């Protein structure tokens, strides 16, 4: 396929390529993600039980306590952080978390265009998300 390029805004610089994990629901890192295994634990979340480790984690925005920023740092220290974060609208909790955890992050991306399982390249120095390969059914 011809790669689809989505243009957004740089939040934390970096460059990587990985499989996408996409939710259209906001994520609260405090209480929503287990810093010990990187799994989403918020009961009513559509990604509940999924592991965010090494994924291009795409979600609209964060919500909840500012302690959530620290949870992202903890995940990174435990080697469980996502490869990159792609948001629709960045919010302070996730922005601060991505900065201190040094996880590449971009926002202002239409995440509905990305599907879980797609191979995505994130160029967070230019604010680009490129869908390289669609998930095979």
């Amino acid at each position: 396929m011809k790669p689809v390029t989505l243009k957004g805004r740089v939040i934390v610089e970096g460059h990587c390529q990985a499989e996408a994990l996409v939710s259209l629901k906001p994520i609260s890192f405090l209480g929503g993600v287990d810093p010990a295994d990187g799994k989403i634990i918020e009961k009513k979340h559509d990604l509940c039980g999924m592991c965010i480790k090494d994924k291009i984690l795409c979600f609209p925005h964060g919500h909840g306590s500012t302690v959530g920023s620290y949870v992202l740092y903890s995940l990174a220290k435990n080697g469980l952080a996502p490869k990159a974060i792609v948001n629709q609208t960045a919010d302070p909790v996730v922005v601060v978390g991505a900065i201190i955890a040094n996880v590449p992050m971009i926002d202002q991306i239409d995440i509905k265009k990305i599907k879980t399982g797609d191979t995505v390249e994130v160029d967070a120095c230019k604010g680009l998300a490129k869908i390289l390969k669609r998930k095979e059914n």
Partner: protein
Amino acid sequence: MQLTREEERILSDEQGWANRTCMKILVRLGELFGAEKLIPITSAHVSGISYKTLGDAPIEYLRALADANAKVKVKTTLNPQSLDPDYLIRKIPIELRNKQLDILKQFDKMGLTESLTCTPYYLGKPRRGSHMAWAESSAVVYANSVLGAWTNREGGPSALAAAIIGKTPDYGIHKPENRQPNCLVNVKTELRSETEYGALGIHLGKLLRDKIPLIQGLQKDSDQLKQLSAAIATTGMTNMFKAGSITERKETERIEIESSDLKRTIEELNTASGRKPDLVFIGCPHCSHAEMKKIARLVKGKKVKRGIELWVCASCHVRDTAKDAVKQIEKSGGHVLAGVCTVVSWTEKLGIKTIMTNSAKTAYYASTLSKADATLKPMEECLKTALQG
């Protein structure tokens, strides 16, 4: 954003990880909210101190900052911790105590004063019009609305970053044009107690979202306005209110508050349906000097009932400057606890299932954070129950 040469240098300095990270936080947040520059602050107040609310996640980050020699550049105070060094420390498992001490040690290394209070303004009143970076939403609303100091509602990590750099991005409520009321609130009933001020805040917070209300019908009692500040921040994103009289401005959104609104809010917060409390708690937000004296006067010559705990929470500063009141409260069997509050302590581990309080904020958080039912009544009635059962 326009950065000075010095700010640019910190941002690109490969050696100074701590300062670079903090600067990056401020600049990115500034860009996010449309700030054009950073402005100096006179003080910072950091939330997220209690091990109960923090858990393990932040300790590593705080240690990394402290080990990288990060130091605060302005006077920086800390929110309450999960226990006090005299009473609760003896009731809490040692591993929890040690984790709490570890957190305090990291802050101490960075030069934060161990104030441990949600009322930093009693330790030193900020000047009117001074720019600050405060977390702790109740103090933010009180500072902007009652003290006339200027602070956005920071999160724990951004307040700490501002403290270490000594600056904050110039957006939101730091701009005079963003401090104008854009919603009119007419309180059509007389507010008779601090509890009703709290109920008004809980009710309004939900309706206002992030609007700044001009509220007609408030008294100038600072302890009652403190309850309003804490409650309005509990349910909403509002970081400021104005007290005054409404003049004709028809185009602005208008909210009418009836006595039934307050009555219903208080009923919803009273989840204990009249059951006897395990704990009577005064001090959310932390007590003022005047409140300490009032409590002492109300308990004088009486004893707290067996089977009920009475906690009065304040900063160390207020406790130490109200010695006579403290003596009186302790003589009556109450506990004056410094640097802690029920919301961020392990009350559920002490078998506390019902909390009676005059604080709408505490009542609101009782079911989720304290796993307890609540009874919300004015201070006089709370103390009466503590003394009579």
